């Protein structure tokens, strides 16, 4: 079982840090009720096993489907086919994303049905479809990613002026929600399939990255357009789920189980559909390869279900509890510090993070090791949670007060960053805001804001995902700049040595 053991070891190393940190918190700052503590441990085990199976499944199923569909669409060599294909692909993977549905239900309640659930899901999915289409177009026209990003974010800035602060939060959160556990590996593979066709003699693997980033931007764009056209004037308070005492020990797991299996099925379905269409229409792979891909999808399904059961059943309650206790019992400084480590260690357990960091390592021939990308990402997310916690304590600090200067900095950085790292950075933003963030970190932030008198659970709850999706753009680009600097120095050294 070489592959599984290898993955399990890797996942153990990814999930154990956050587990130990929570255990540390349990024995020091925030003693967790004993039942919840053991649920958390069971959750951690489920997450390790689930992640292991899921990632094997991604390698066998999701990645080949993405690569093959990108490749075959481009090889048909017809612009209209490519563009419509991109639109459809983006649309169906986004519409099936469970995280997006969760968010849209919240938004529906918050806006008193003015922005309806399905309306939001459709709007966002169209946005994602359009931007995947733009991504395809840029790849075959060989247009630089940063040019497309500058234009996109320019439009976003303009549109943001016509929107209320609440809608900013919805929009940027939507961007994080569309890029879930299965969407992200699929989008990465889609771009890799296309870029791979042109990349044999290319300078580097830059064109493999950026598709996830563009899809996220598509969600923001679509929501801002929606908000600018008919913005709800008033918002109403809704009840956030409190930590209800479960009837029996395993209840949090069993009660979430059916939902988890349905959600996972929803996430996998578009991929299976895409595969069937291209297999019947274009590919006609041999039976062996087809069964391999199907087995892969099955692994994805079970792995994701186990993972989600672990997160929902074991992690969410603990996240909310820790957040509340830190604010109630301890100084702001301690809360900020705990948030820092929580963010840093949680993102390592995010499924798509492994897919991205492995892909970067592979496509750079190993020169950008996965641990380096992982570290930059973790530092980024750590700071995003710090910002989220500060936002809870500081009254009047709005999301856009943080996002506006940050995105201006990001755009300036992207002028200097090597193209490869721009793509990786924008993809990392989508990758970091996966299911782990949408549940554990969000629960933590909601717990914290619920416990702070001046904070608004909803306003501060919304926006956390937006922050998590933003900070990696800075840290990964910074990594790219350091890398470039270092590379130049090494090359100079090598040249001068050779000429001696």
């Amino acid at each position, binding site marked *: 079982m070489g592959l599984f053991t290898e993955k399990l070891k890797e996942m153990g190393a990814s999930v154990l840090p956050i587990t130990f940190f929570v255990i540390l918190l349990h024995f020091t700052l925030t003693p967790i009720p004993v039942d919840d503590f053991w649920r958390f441990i069971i959750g951690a085990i489920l997450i390790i096993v689930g992640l292991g199976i899921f990632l094997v499944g991604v390698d*066998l199923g999701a990645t080949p489907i993405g690569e093959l569909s990108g490749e075959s669409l481009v090889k048909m060599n017809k612009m209209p086919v490519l563009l419509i294909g991109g639109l459809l692909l983006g649309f169906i993977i986004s519409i099936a994303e469970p995280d997006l549905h969760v968010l849209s239900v919240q938004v529906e309640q918050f806006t008193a049905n003015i922005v309806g659930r399905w309306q939001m899901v459709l709007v966002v999915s169209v946005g994602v479809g359009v931007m995947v289409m733009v991504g395809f177009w840029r790849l075959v026209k060989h247009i630089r990613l940063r040019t497309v990003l500058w234009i996109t974010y320019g439009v976003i800035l303009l549109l943001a002026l016509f929107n209320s602060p609440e809608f900013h939060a919805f929009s940027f959160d939507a961007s994080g929600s569309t890029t879930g556990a299965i969407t992200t590996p699929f989008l990465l593979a889609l771009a890799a399939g296309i870029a791979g066709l042109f990349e044999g*003699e290319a300078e580097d693997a830059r064109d493999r990255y950026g598709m996830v980033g563009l899809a996220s931007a598509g969600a923001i764009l679509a929501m801002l357009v929606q908000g600018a056209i008919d913005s709800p004037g008033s918002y109403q308070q809704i009840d956030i789920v409190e930590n209800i005492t479960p009837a029996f020990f395993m209840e949090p797991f069993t009660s979430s189980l059916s939902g988890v299996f349905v959600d996972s099925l929803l996430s996998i379905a578009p991929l299976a559909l895409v595969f069937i269409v291209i297999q019947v229409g274009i590919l006609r792979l041999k039976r062996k*390869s087809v069964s391999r891909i199907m*087995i892969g999808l099955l692994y994805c399904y079970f792995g994701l279900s186990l993972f989600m059961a672990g997160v929902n059943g074991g992690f969410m309650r603990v996240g909310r509890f820790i957040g509340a206790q830190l604010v109630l019992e301890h100084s702001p400084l301690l809360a900020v510090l705990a948030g820092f480590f929580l963010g840093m260690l949680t993102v390592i357990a995010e499924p798509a993070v492994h897919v991205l960091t492995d892909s970067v390592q592979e496509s*750079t*021939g190993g020169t950008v090791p996965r641990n380096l990308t992982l570290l930059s990402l973790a530092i980024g997310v750590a700071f995003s949670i710090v910002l989220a916690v500060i936002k809870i304590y500081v009254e009047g600090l709005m999301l856009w007060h943080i996002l506006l200067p940050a995105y201006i900095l990001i755009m300036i950085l992207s002028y200097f960053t090597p193209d490869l790292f721009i793509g990786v950075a924008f993809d990392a933003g989508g990758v970091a805001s996966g299911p782990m963030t949408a549940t554990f970190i969000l629960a933590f932030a909601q717990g914290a804001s619920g416990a702070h008198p001046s904070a608004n659970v909803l306003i501060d709850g919304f926006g956390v995902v937006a922050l998590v999706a933003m900070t990696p753009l800075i840290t990964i680009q910074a990594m790219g700049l350091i890398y470039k600097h270092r590379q130049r120095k090494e090359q100079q050294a090598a040249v001068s040595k*050779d000429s001696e």
Partner: protein
Amino acid sequence: MTTISDIGFANQAMLLMIVPHGRAEAIALYALEEGASCATVFSGHGTVPKPILRMLGLDEVRRELILITLRKQDAASELLHKIRDVGHFSEKDFGIAFIQPLLKISGEKDELPAANFQFEHSDANFRALITIVENGEGHTVVDIARENGAAGATIISAMGSADHSAHVFDFDINPRKDLVLLISDKEKADSLQEALLAALRTSTPGRGIIFSLYVTETLGIMGHENDGQSDSGIWASTAPSPHTVLLVMVNRPKTKDIIQACETAGNMGASIIHGRGIRHTDRPGGFFRESFDIERNMILMVIKKEQEEEMIQILRALDKSDPDYALSVSATYALDFSRFSQTE
């Protein structure tokens, strides 16, 4: 420190090691400590011959290949022994290693004849059988090889050089290829090659090639007890093959130049494999490793013996024109070279 190996044209032996994923770093660094000036690492896949794992889709293991070219054949042998003696290959099924003699490439223009084996070594009991096929067919090759008695094989993803006849959206595309590498004794290699040629024959041109290389020393080959022993013998006095395989290592951004130059010289196809070069550096401490690696590509070309000299002159001229190429060129005989397509 660049006494036993070289980035350049002067190498005469190549040491290739196939090890589990993640283990190449340590071995490469050890080799650098022992005086090699550069090691190049590629990634690939091995397969485990277990039907159950195969059914579950779990029969692949990630592998890494380490390639070190050395100035002298005995230096390669010595390095391999040192690597084995410090315990790198002591784990069961850890990996395999082999040494391959290289043709001597002339020092300067008008000096020696273009190429000549310098060492009188080995009618070589072992062969490295290399098959390059369309992407996805690597598994088929491994299956056929297994059915015919091969123990294991490594699949490495490669890119074909651009096919200029097939533009997509006004750009050339690179077909994806699988390179399958397997080591076996001479007799088996011959029968495997025959079996593969018979099974994969096609009328479509450009579907793949197969050839084998001399191997003088092996380590870790299943069922072979003579581990670490050199075969000795004498090359046939006439050239054993009308084909030469050129292995060109180049900094990745410069790949296109090399391919273009070789195309101008009449070479029609090359395979490109992405990897990283680990070089000796005076500044230790990268972010997570002890060396700072740069992206390197290996370009593999099978050419006719007559083309060899011209090709090497062109490469040498390019290398001199810009230090950024950092070319390392190796040549050796491509034995029993054939194509899968009948029409070529």
